[in-house]
């Protein structure tokens, strides 16, 4: 009787373990499928031509996304210029100066910003920048991405600085160094790798954003010559090409998607490389 019950319990345990394994596999399956199709449909179209040429008009085959690739880099760079100073300094305040109650409020507001859907950033920046400037521009797109970065960078900076042992700060202060110098030269330096990691992850995240760029950076089939002009970007170009009813554009959309995914994964790989052998935990 008891043996039978035990057998049933063991069988249940094995069955549930198998079920959980199955679920874990199903969670990973979409990733494998997406990567498989990206490789199958995109790889054949990514060539030197694709990386170095402008898009061709409808009907002409060939052409590439060189302007979109460069545009994406410009936009991410602008986003870093906006997001990193605000984020890192804000994170320093939280970790080094802030009182618990104000910190709680700042974290709460950062969480709200973090949860704000990216399309909302798009229309807010449209109203803030595009309407007064009377046109879409790289500035507007970079600002939208930069604002998305701010809460991400604030939180990782704070978390990384919190990991720096208090004794480092005390040692610096004991030498008579002003606090701001000890923060910049000792605390920030110690946590530097972690913060760079967080910034890279934030870059990878905003590099793939499309919704905030739809109405801010808009799109451009040509090179843009100034930051106050609309600028092409990879995600936006993929979206435009995916929606279009032309086979050749679909092919290009897959190629663009493959390039974008490789960029995003390259950022993550860089993060892994940076954090290898470091005793500081990694930003998630």
């Amino acid at each position: 009787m008891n043996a039978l019950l035990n057998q049933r319990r063991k069988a249940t345990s094995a069955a549930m373990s198998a079920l959980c394994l199955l679920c874990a596999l199903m969670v990973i399956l979409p990733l494998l499928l997406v990567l498989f199709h990206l490789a199958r449909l995109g790889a054949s179209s990514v060539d030197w031509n694709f990386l170095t040429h402008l898009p061709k008009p409808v009907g002409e085959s060939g052409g590439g996304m060189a302007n979109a690739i460069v545009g994406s880099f410009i936009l991410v760079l602008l986003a870093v210029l906006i997001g990193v100073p605000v984020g890192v300094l804000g994170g320093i305040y939280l970790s080094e100066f802030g009182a618990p109650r104000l910190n709680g409020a700042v974290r709460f507001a950062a969480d709200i910003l973090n949860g704000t859907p990216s399309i909302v950033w798009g229309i807010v920046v449209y109203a803030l920048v595009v309407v007064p400037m009377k046109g879409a521009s790289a500035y507007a797109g970079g600002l939208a991405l930069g604002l998305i970065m701010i809460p991400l960078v604030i939180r990782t900076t704070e978390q990384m600085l919190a990991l720096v042992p208090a004794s480092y700060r005390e040692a610096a202060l004991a030498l008579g160094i002003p606090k701001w110098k000890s923060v910049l030269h000792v605390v920030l330096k110690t946590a530097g790798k972690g913060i760079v990691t967080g910034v890279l992850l934030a870059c990878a995240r905003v590099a793939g954003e499309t919704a905030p760029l739809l109405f801010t950076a808009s799109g451009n089939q040509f090179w843009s010559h100034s930051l106050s002009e609309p600028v092409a970007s990879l995600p936006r170009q993929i979206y435009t090409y995916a929606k279009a009813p032309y086979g050749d554009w679909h092919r290009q959309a897959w190629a663009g998607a493959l390039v974008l995914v490789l960029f995003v994964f390259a950022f993550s790989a860089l993060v892994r490389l940076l954090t290898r052998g470091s005793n500081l935990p990694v930003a998630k």
Partner: protein
Amino acid sequence: MNSIAPQSMLLPPPSRTGDAAFKFLTWCMAMMVFVLVAVVGWELFRGSEPSLRQFGWRFLTRADWDPVSGAFGALPFMFGTFVSSLLGLLLALPLSVAAAIYLTELAPGWMRQPAVALIEMLASIPSVILGLWGMVVLVPWLNAHPYPWLQRVLGFLPLFRGHVYGPCLLSAAVIIAIMIVPIVTSISREVFRAVPDSRREAAYALGATRWEVTRLAVLKGSKRGIFGAAMLGLGRALGETMAVTMVVGNSTVISPSLFAPGCTLASGIATQFAEAADNFNLYPGALYELGLVLLAITIVTNILARLLVGAVGAPRHPGPA
């Protein structure tokens, strides 16, 4: 050696202006988050003013959306957002929790890190690429196999009646599920890992099997955390834009069938804003108000999630410096 010590004693005490200035600078940057929250709210409010004035609260309950005749109601968008997000969560939650259980409790040690890395990779795939994949690969497949089957088996329900087009609320729900699985899984993992090992050991000591340990020692106390993970996933789901836009069909008609094309708040803004911006101000106003509604819903969801997940993931400070 002797000559150095007296000299350094003569140095003036370090100036405090630098400290004050630096503290003020970092304070300003920290305050930026409040400014930004205010700016987002204010710009959305200002943009939606024409629509707010014209329709008032009725905007939320009207089901017609016809830019040509100037009739704007948010109901089809809210309906589509809730249906696709909740359905997506319904699909994602059991999978994510089971996967998190596997990864924290059952998987062999060598497998955990690579599996977690793969799930993080899934999280890092840009929305537009999942949308492209959904459009070209997933939806045609759903259309050919699971949808006709669902219709045959559950066709007596109004939910599964009507013509199968492909792009529809159910397709959007499937894409949303794929997009929120990583975050729900990773937060569930944190919740399970926060359970002290002593509880597992106690269960083992009583002779519990592996599954019984998981059920009694781990799952039982984690309900609240799992609910929080679900809410955070829902917060993501509600605002998902690109992938959803590409598979939802973008029809502003409310239909009881999940196979009918629909729209969400985010997809409505994404597809109509460019056209509206050149238009009279009631049309963009209505879209800004959709944004306002979306923001309000996500804020409420995220606050709820925060209250539930509580301290999980909050940084611990080693003490005042």
